């Protein structure tokens, strides 16, 4: 009589991208191996490709700020990178070339993804807008302007994305205090006819909003 043998568990799941990383990150996927694209960029733009960083199996290409629109257009028209997945700012908090903008662009047909970075100075942080190439960059550039104060030249409607229009600061800059600057963001009035509350913590300082039946009636009749 044959005894029942335990079977080894077998998984039928086959990931679409098998591991293709380097020693640093053996789990990196083929999607981020874009050596052909980097070579094509180098051939087309030469010295404007400043730096290619290889980390954890991913390629990051740093390019000249002034040519980012041309590079994006070349990637879209010639290399098939048609989808701007992400765009965002960063504060490196360094003396020169303080701010950074990254572009994550995807080739949907080939299943490839490339990350482009540009840097800009603290004095006048200006980066050309890529909305003419990727309309999807619209809100992301507005967010980067709101949070870091990076102006995107050529953006048609560069308003603040999240903070109020009359806010004077760019809150994700490293020097901005975490709890904000008192008085920069007013709270609503404590009573309907009152003034805006400039103290951000009125309750902690003893000001309790009155109940509606305790509110003093307004002199004005509207």
């Amino acid at each position, binding site marked *: 009589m044959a005894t029942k043998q335990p079977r080894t568990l077998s998984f039928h799941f086959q990931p679409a991208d098998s591991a293709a990383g380097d020693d640093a990150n053996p789990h990196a996927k083929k999607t981020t191996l874009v050596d052909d694209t980097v070579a094509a960029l180098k051939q087309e733009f030469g010295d404007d490709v400043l730096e290619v960083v290889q980390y954890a199996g991913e390629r990051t290409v740093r390019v000249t700020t002034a040519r980012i629109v041309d590079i994006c257009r070349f990637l879209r028209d010639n290399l098939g990178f048609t989808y701007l997945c992400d765009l965002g700012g960063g504060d490196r908090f360094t003396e020169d070339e303080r701010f950074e903008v990254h572009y994550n662009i995807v080739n949907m047909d080939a299943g490839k993804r490339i990350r482009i970075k540009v840097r800009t100075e603290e004095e006048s942080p200006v980066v050309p807008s890529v909305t003419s190439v990727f309309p999807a960059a619209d809100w992301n550039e507005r967010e980067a302007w709101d949070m870091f104060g990076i102006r995107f030249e050529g953006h048609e409607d560069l308003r603040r994305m999240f903070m*109020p229009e009359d806010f004077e600061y760019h809150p994700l800059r490293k020097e901005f205090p*975490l709890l904000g*600057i008192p008085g920069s963001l007013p*709270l*609503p009035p404590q009573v309907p006819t009152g003034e805006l509350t400039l103290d951000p913590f009125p309750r902690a300082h003893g000001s*309790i909003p009155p*109940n509606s*039946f305790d509110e003093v009636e307004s002199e004005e009749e509207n």
Partner: protein
Amino acid sequence: MANDSSLSEGFLTTRVDAVVNWARSNSLMPMPMGLSCCAIEMMAFAAPKYDVARFGSEAMRFSPRQADLMIVAGWVSYKMAHTIRRVWDQMADPKWCIAMGACASTGGMHRCYGVVQGVDNFLPVDVYVPGCPPRPEALIHALMDIQEKIRNEYSVGQDGDFGTDHPAIAPVRPKVLSPSGDDVITPGGLYNQ
């Protein structure tokens, strides 16, 4: 027995405040100011499983003119605070406010430049609900606290003599007698305010 009960005549006597407060407390219409994940629990609170209709508050009113209980559920940004205050000002008296969850009560984990550190900085809050997010039972308990608050306050009985100081109303709560039967011991714990 029927002859010496006033009920046999088809009426009974009570205080106006008691009747009005009874009606108000059992027909609260919440204004669901759902701003983030607490709003999901607030939906569960109104949905059949927790069924706040048992407490007369199933009619969520998205118009401030028709609501008398604002449930601020979620974190409030400085930008949104002005809208909330505006909605609150449009609600008709009498009105009450629940700050639901850690964010609405204190700012919670959002200790940063963009989030108001508690809606009591610009709203008169009646009940704070802890939790992140609070369970629907906790919100039902907050609603019951509001109901108890309503039952213990003056309503229209105060009309006509504003400006006079009223003595505090004795709370309508079960009293605990001492073993000797004369002293009233204030019950501790949850309802001891």
